[in-house]
């Protein structure tokens, strides 16, 4: 059931991604773990009506740690797939821009 609406999970807004967006024309999303580059390109192009030049994908590994107090308790943070989408110059995605 891979559908374009199931590909993109959320935009990632951090200091790094803000820099990428403003200077490099790149937008960063968390995407479905099963998503491929082609699917991500299609999803972004259709949903935001932009031209995608390049898609880079990275798998962020799951992280785990133990509580300081209780050494047994294991905290697991799920891993996810991150996609850095480069748009053609002049294209923007509003979700990232916030209120102008």
């Amino acid at each position, binding site marked *: 059931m891979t559908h374009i609406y199931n590909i993109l999970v959320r935009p*990632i*807004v*951090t*200091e790094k*991604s*803000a820099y990428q967006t*403003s200077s490099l024309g790149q937008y960063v999303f968390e995407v479905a773990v099963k998503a491929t580059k082609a699917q991500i390109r299609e999803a972004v192009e259709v949903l935001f009506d932009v031209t995608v030049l390049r898609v880079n994908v990275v798998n962020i590994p799951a992280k785990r740690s133990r509580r300081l107090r209780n050494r047994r308790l294991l905290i697991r943070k799920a891993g996810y797939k991150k996609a850095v989408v480069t748009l053609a110059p002049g294209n923007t995605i509003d979700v990232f*821009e*916030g*209120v*102008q």
Partner: protein
Amino acid sequence: MKIDTENIEDRQVQLTIEVPDDRYKAAMRSAARRMSKRDKIPGFRPGKVPFNVAVGRFGEDAIFDEAIDTLGQDVYKQALEDSELEPFAPGALNEVVSRTPLVLRYVVPLSPEVDLADYRKLRVKFDPPEVSDEALDAMMEDLRQRQALIEPAERPVQMSDVAVIDIEGNLDEPEEDESARVIKESGISLLIEADTDWPYPGVADELIGIEAGQSRTLTHTFREDYPAEELRGRRATFEVTCLEVKSRLVPEWSDDLARGIGEYDDLLDLRIKAREGLAESAEREAGAEYADEVLEKVGESATVTYPPMLADQEVDDLLHDLVHQLEARKLTLEDYFKAENKTQAEVRDELRPRAEERVKRALILGKVVEEEQLEVDEEEVSRQVRRLASNMQDPEGKIFKALNTPRSRRRVENDLLFEKAIDRLISIAKGENPDKGNPEPDEEAVESDSDSDGT
């Protein structure tokens, strides 16, 4: 920066300022940075949040408020310099007219304006007070009664005796959850006179003839105009036990008695001195009343305009005084509001007319001081400070030190100036037509004042 000034009523100026766009933007940006330093946004180091993200996060209004806090002050300061206004007190941001372009409106209070009109032509009739013979007689009688000789007597109580009694009074039909007891006292002295009204009027007649050791049971229905409301119209029974009877011998007037009372040569001397004392206090009272009347007349013809802020401050002061008064009774302001069943706003509204009156008076007196070129020099202040301190039975001690600080010296100076202004107004109203400035006779008056204090 475009500045419009407009005079509005009550000595206030309305400043309408249009802030240039780039300044507004810069202020917004720095405000956003400040806010992001305060409240962390996940994914960003504090203070490193891009403006658009901050706007999305905090909302534009919040950032705007923050920006106005600082920008508003800067703009206000600059606007004051540019418009060459001399504010009497800090102005306040009244409203934000529009955001694009940013237009702010300030209300700036100016110094109050007092027009005394023709106060120098004011005349008020002064009625010198007179001491009536009745008043003197009453006072003499009072004095005589106080000289009464009280001695234990072995006989039933007569009129104008003193009875030492135990008394206990209970209501006949107390209501539920109400204590039946009206009074319970033991060993108190009761003067048996026709007008004795404790515990109730007419008690003297009922006690006549009681002897030491005897008891009597009295019933009394309180009259409808009895001071204590809850007792009106109720019936009570009083157990009275007489412990002792004392006769009271009121001496007749004689020269010896007069000499015994104080340093008087004879009865006539006493009468004269008493009359003088009465006249003096009557004069003081009349003088104060007269001053009040004169001030009121001046106030009627004068036009005083002042920013409403002044009255607000005065209301604050009054409220502050009230808090102090309440503190003496171990109450807080909240208790007071609850007891009076009022809100703070209502109490403030009530205080307002009084505050306005006080502000007006102070302004008028200030103007009189200015117009009449009245002055108080350092020496006078020192003298007054010493006098105040010695009045409180603490010569050169703590109170003196507290009074001798520069701040309270200034207050004393102000008080003295106001006093002089009042004196001046009085002499004007009496038609004495004094000269402006600090006249010599005034000095003399001060001298003789301090002389009489020294003795």
